[in-house]
């Protein structure tokens, strides 16, 4: 028989003294999660980190001195919740958004410069290849472009038809539908190109080459009719923005592929995570660029029907993007 005298320090006393603190922390956390930290009073905001530290230290003490499994589990889950509220907090939305446009996006794009160069060269090469193939052997045309996509604009079409496809006013009025459909479709393709980067970037490269070859094939169809410049204007009014976005999306995909394949000195996981986060920033920019491209293609191209105007818009947009991505958000010297 042991003597039944209660020890001076017991888990029971320990718990009794601190229970109210824990309950207070729990109710504060509930309110922060459900509403917003802004709803807390100033006193409560000051209390939150203090209560978190008290609970955390109670957890360490309990682990060493108590055998109450339920209490330890409770303290651990409470501390974990508080940890993520306190250390996981982010800037307010507005600051996040301005930070993204001022620094985040342009510097993420600049970090992808090697991939962007590779993808641009690949795109140009595949446009050239597509053009050469179709120009020498017209049967290649339908190997690259599906029938519904061509919509009659093929090697056998008459000059008149080809001209009409570039300069005629739109038959139906649904420009906004056209613009929306273009935007959603292109964004989906861009996101796919990004996601496929995970497979070491190989599908991304194929996707770029395919798109480039398609463009080249169309050039081959228009140039014999003397409509080369016209087609260039028609495609580039939105194309400088859209192809810019596609290049960025593919470069983002390739960047991930590079991170996974060649992690350098870091662990493969760490390298992939770094590359993924940087590429994701670029992707937000890509979706926004495609929105602009969708508007230009859906409205601009249908309403503006002269080569000069189309080409000048195309040039202006290209200049705008290049300037923004090259110079925005660089640290000032001195």
């Amino acid at each position: 028989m042991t003597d039944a005298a209660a020890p001076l320090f017991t888990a029971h006393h320990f718990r009794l003294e601190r229970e109210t603190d824990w309950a207070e922390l729990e109710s504060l956390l509930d309110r922060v999660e459900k509403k917003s930290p802004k709803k807390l009073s100033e006193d409560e905001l000051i209390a939150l980190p203090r209560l978190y530290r008290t609970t955390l230290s109670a957890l360490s003490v309990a682990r060493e001195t108590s055998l109450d499994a339920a209490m330890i589990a409770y303290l651990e889950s409470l501390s974990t919740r508080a940890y993520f509220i306190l250390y996981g907090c982010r800037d307010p939305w507005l600051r996040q958004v301005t930070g993204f446009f001022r620094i985040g996006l342009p510097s993420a794009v600049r970090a992808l410069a090697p991939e962007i160069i590779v993808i641009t060269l690949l795109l140009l090469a595949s446009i050239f290849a597509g053009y050469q193939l179709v120009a020498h052997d017209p049967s290649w045309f339908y190997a690259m472009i599906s029938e519904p996509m061509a919509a009659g604009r093929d090697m056998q079409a008459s000059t008149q038809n080809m001209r009409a496809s570039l300069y005629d006013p739109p038959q139906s009025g649904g420009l906004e539908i056209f613009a929306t459909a273009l935007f959603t479709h292109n964004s989906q393709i861009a996101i796919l190109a990004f996601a496929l980067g995970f497979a070491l970037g190989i599908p991304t490269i194929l996707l770029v080459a395919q798109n480039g070859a398609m463009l080249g094939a169309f050039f081959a169809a228009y140039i014999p009719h003397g409509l080369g410049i016209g087609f260039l204007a028609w495609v580039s009014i939105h194309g400088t923005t859209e192809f810019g976005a596609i290049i960025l999306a593919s470069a983002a995909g390739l960047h991930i592929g590079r991170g996974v394949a060649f992690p350098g000195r870091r662990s493969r996981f760490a390298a992939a995570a770094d590359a993924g986060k940087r590429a994701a920033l670029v992707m937000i920019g890509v979706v926004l660029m495609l929105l602009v491209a969708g508007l230009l293609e859906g409205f601009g191209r249908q309403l503006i029907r002269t080569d000069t105007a189309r080409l000048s818009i195309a040039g202006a947009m290209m200049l705008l993007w290049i300037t923004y991505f090259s110079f925005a958000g660089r640290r000032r010297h001195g």
Partner: protein
Amino acid sequence: MARPGRDRSLIRRLVTPEGVPLHLNLASAGARASAFIIDMLLIAAILIALTCLALFGFYLIGNKYPGIVLVIWLIGFFLLRNFYFIWFESGRRAATWGKRRMGLRVIARDGGQLTGAAVVARNMMREVEVFLPLMFLGFGAAEGFVDRWTMIAGFGWACLFLFLPVFNRDRLRAGDLIAGTWVVENARRDLGIDLVAQTGRSADAAGFSQAELEVYGQYELQRLEAVLREGNAEAITTVADVIRGKLNRWDPIGDRAFLDAYYAQTRAHFERGLLMGRRKRDKFDTSA
């Protein structure tokens, strides 16, 4: 069979800046899948509601502006498909409705801030994980632009991404890999009642010798705690019989009172030991 020398548990340690380790339970593949199915059902429900809205819009101003249906639907579908997950996971709870329902949340693997970029990265990867397999299955078959073997090969390839979480210890999707995140259980636990305080008087219903108190260890004590908290009469009888048999003590008191007394005294005994730096982990532990 578990391969030896490899930690296959789903518990990960995170050390806070204060130096206290917290244990995180990674979400099981099953819980993740359930959460995803709930989210998909929700998206489907929202899409149906959206379609109704679009039809209603058509009914109102359809003859003047028939494009409205298509525009609402296209934009809505695009936003849902790409931004449903991103929107909810960038919230304070870092979980979609499905994850909340299953008690899960997304966190950064290094325990730091879960950035917006990470959330975007992990969710854009869903495109290859979910929609690519569907695409190979659906489009390929419907439009006949791929033959059967291309479809099977493509589908198999896409399934590699889909089932990635099952093949790694950390249950990482491709998206988690890219974003440096993982999904953990975020279960709320109740403090529960203080068993020792509650037993009060009955703690003395039977006295136990030191040898009797040291028959078991911490592990068994905490199993007993779970049984007492549950309060299932059948389990209590079974456990009481086992302990009585082991100690060879057949005190003429109720099973619950017997267990309460044994629990309170054993715990007090072991906790005194803890203060002295002795911890008896389980009944096989002879170091203490």
